């Protein structure tokens, strides 16, 4: 599923698969998060202007340019903690980015995605279907309920 999201962002997914992928992403918060994270990574890798190394300075300049400091006497004491907290936020973003990049390794490929594509017919539904509409195969080959559970 994550590969499909990645393929969609790279414009490599056929339009046929889109409906299904959107349904899956909408119905699963984890995939929604994955979508956002991939865009963050993409922005970083493409050197999106927002993510340049001087991100902090730019942000500080913008804050500097902001009007309205209502209590001039407290200016110095107020600004330092703010700088620290912004620095902390930037560090947090970098840390999350790093963690996400680490997770793209092979160990993540093995983790089961939360929304799965059906690899077989769930036996409970096949069994219920055969109860009302038995096919030749359900008469003569083992029925669904036994083929999966009997061993």
């Amino acid at each position, binding site marked *: 599923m994550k590969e499909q999201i990645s393929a969609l962002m790279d414009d490599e997914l056929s339009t046929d698969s889109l409906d299904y992928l959107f349904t899956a992403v909408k119905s699963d918060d984890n995939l929604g998060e994955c979508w956002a994270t991939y865009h963050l990574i993409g922005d970083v890798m493409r050197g999106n202007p927002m993510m340049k190394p001087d991100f902090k300075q730019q942000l500080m300049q913008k804050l500097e340019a902001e009007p309205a400091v209502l209590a001039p006497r407290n200016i110095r004491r107020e600004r330092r903690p703010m700088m620290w907290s912004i620095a902390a936020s930037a560090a947090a973003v970098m840390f999350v980015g790093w963690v996400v990049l680490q997770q793209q390794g092979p160990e993540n490929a093995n983790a089961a995605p939360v929304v799965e594509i*059906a690899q077989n017919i769930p036996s*409970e539904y096949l069994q*219920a*279907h055969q*109860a*009302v*509409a038995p096919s030749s195969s359900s008469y003569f080959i083992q029925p669904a309920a036994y083929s999966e559970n009997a061993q």
Partner: protein
Amino acid sequence: MKHVLLTCLLAMQVSFAYAEDPWRLLQDAADAARELSYRGIFVYQSGHNSRSVQITHMNYGQGEYARSVVLDGSPREVLSQGSDVVIYTPRNEKVVITKRRAQNLFPALLPPSMSGLKASYEARLGGQERVGGREGQVIFLNSRDQYRYGYKFWTDREHGLILKSITFNENNEPIEQITFTQLTLMDTQNMDWFQPHVDPAKHYVMEEENVAAADVSDVQLGQLPAGFKKIDQVKRMVPGKQVPVTHLIYSDGLACVSLFIEPVNKKRQPKLGGHTLGSTNFYTHVSDGYQVVVVGEVPAATVAHMANAVKFKR
């Protein structure tokens, strides 16, 4: 001159024989499978699976009695009386008994009446071929659209019974074949054969079905593939589910499709998409907080189409 005339007459007769109505022959096959008394062995093949089955079918105006014994692998048996079918399946230390509604049990693959099939299928006569020591007439039953499988039948020229059947998928590849290797008519009224011989030493257990009538007023179905009609709607307990599932059953006369509708379980996300197993196709999707599962002996396009046709009233 006389000879020429005779030849012409003969040729005409032959062509008349060829002009036989294929639907008439299919109706004869459907009737023969239910009305005649016969015993035989047929081979069922699908993918890598193959089973020999011995069938005994009797009808002396007292209704139908049939017993099919699977001769290969585990000794399953299917006994039917009228429309009640009971399947005996050995399983570990037990023999599990399941009840079914009678349907398409070979050689009675065709429905009792052909009228429902004519809208979705077209019938065409083929040549004559020998099957299992009997003279057979080939009849093709092809779908008029891409939403169902096609069939090739060999019917007995003397008794009408289906001797052989091949099911073709939408790409015209054979996916299932059933062939009589031996077939004789019976003239005894002895009913000793009508009892299961699975394994008398084992404990027999009945598998209960838990179904109730369903209210489906909030479910709306858009355009379905032509010919598919709803034949039943129930609420049933599906193994592993806490709440009953709404089960709608559709059929075009030959193929059957089940629609299962239930609220999405937040804890257990459904697997989405489709899958094929032998002649059976499956498709799941989620719509308006409901999970829709479609299973049927139809092409993949049909189950996907039907799943996407389900809408809910707000």
